[in-house]
């Protein structure tokens, strides 16, 4: 999420001062994404230039200057909310690449490689779950962030489990002719080069 849309989102709740916008931004993102004060004011100036926010005419520049959303700003934010992020191309995932290399590398124990990554992911998930246990129940925004991270890591563990099973089955089947379908696959689904 860009700072631009984060500020539009905060202003959709009502008029706010610059300093207040910065503090609320940090609070909502669980303090994992601190902003410097300059980023807030530069972005606000651009939003004002584009007609998406308006400032109080009589106020001086600085932390106490108030801003509110214009109808155009509201429309821009609504449009952004409904625009799906581009997930059509598979990301270049280092974990996937490492497992694929291990499968082809003579002498590599691919199941052991998979287990190393599985354990690391579960250890990360244990840490996120501790946060959920202690705090997340009390703050909806933070709980959503923690859940998103847990589901992301969970998906990787599931992929490792599936890969483990697939590689085990493949080892007990007769070898197939060599093929490497990735370039074809990438073209078909329109992946970025």
């Amino acid at each position, binding site marked *: 999420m860009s700072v631009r849309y984060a500020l539009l989102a905060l202003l959709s709740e009502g008029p706010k001062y610059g300093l207040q916008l910065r503090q609320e931004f940090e609070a909502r993102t669980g303090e994992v994404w601190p902003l410097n004060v300059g980023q807030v004011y530069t972005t606000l100036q651009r939003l004002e230039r584009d007609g998406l926010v308006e400032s109080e005419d009589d106020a001086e520049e600085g932390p106490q200057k108030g801003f509110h959303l214009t109808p155009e700003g509201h429309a821009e934010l609504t449009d952004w909310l409904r625009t799906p992020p581009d997930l059509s191309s598979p990301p270049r995932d280092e974990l996937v690449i490492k497992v694929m290399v291990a499968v082809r590398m003579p002498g590599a124990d691919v199941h052991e490689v998979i287990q190393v990554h599985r354990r690391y992911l579960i250890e*990360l998930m*244990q840490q996120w779950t501790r946060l959920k246990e202690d705090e997340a129940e009390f703050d909806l925004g933070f709980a959503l962030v923690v859940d998103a991270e847990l589901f992301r890591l969970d998906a990787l563990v599931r992929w490792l489990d599936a890969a483990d099973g697939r590689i085990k089955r493949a080892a007990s089947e007769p070898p197939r002719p060599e093929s490497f379908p990735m370039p074809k696959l990438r073209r078909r689904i329109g992946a970025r080069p």
Partner: protein
Amino acid sequence: MSMLELRKISKVYGQGASEVQALHEIDLWVDPGSLVAVMGASGSGKSTLLTIAGSLEAPTSGEVVVGGALLSEMSRNDQARMRRRSIGYVFQDYNLLAGLTSVENVSLPLELDGVSAKKARAAGMAALDELGLADRASHYPDELSGGERQRVSIARAVVGDRQLLLADEPSGALDSTNGEAVMRMILGACKRGVAAVVVTHDAQLASWAERVVFLRDGRVVDQTMSPPSPESLLQPAPHS
């Protein structure tokens, strides 16, 4: 002293050509108040491990120690008594008796152990109340949601003075919200001193445990290290 200790447990099914070695020399210990998860794919031996830990099945070799007592030195009657008094089981399909209400299901193990019906019912109500289910005490299993049924089965597993809770895929059929509620309850029991083992293939469930043991083809292949404090996750990334 560990509440549960498995020492070089092996289990072989069948003989000769049809012989299958389900477990190979498993060592595992669970201290009072701790939650251990056992993860593994289907067929990795994790359910067999749990039934042996709960004395529902005997190992081919090795020793099971529950609360300091060697199972191999106990008579069948003593083992049955220990199962009723000390061990609570939670299964994926709940295993509640359809003709009994929630509180009757929960208090049944105590009654079977000779506790008076009145005292057993009071303990059953207390266990249900502790898990936020007091208002479901008179409901029959088919009047409860899946999540509520599993919570009743957890109440049954911890009723009385049970010190060891063994759960096999306890949230297998539940959505993530109910699965989380089930794990919070198991964790709550651990905070009261119960030792718990949860076997699962679900990473989100396993991540509630303080230690995760990985099983593959009947062997323990790995386990998690003590994770650092979660505060480390909240440090800003270097590029931000």
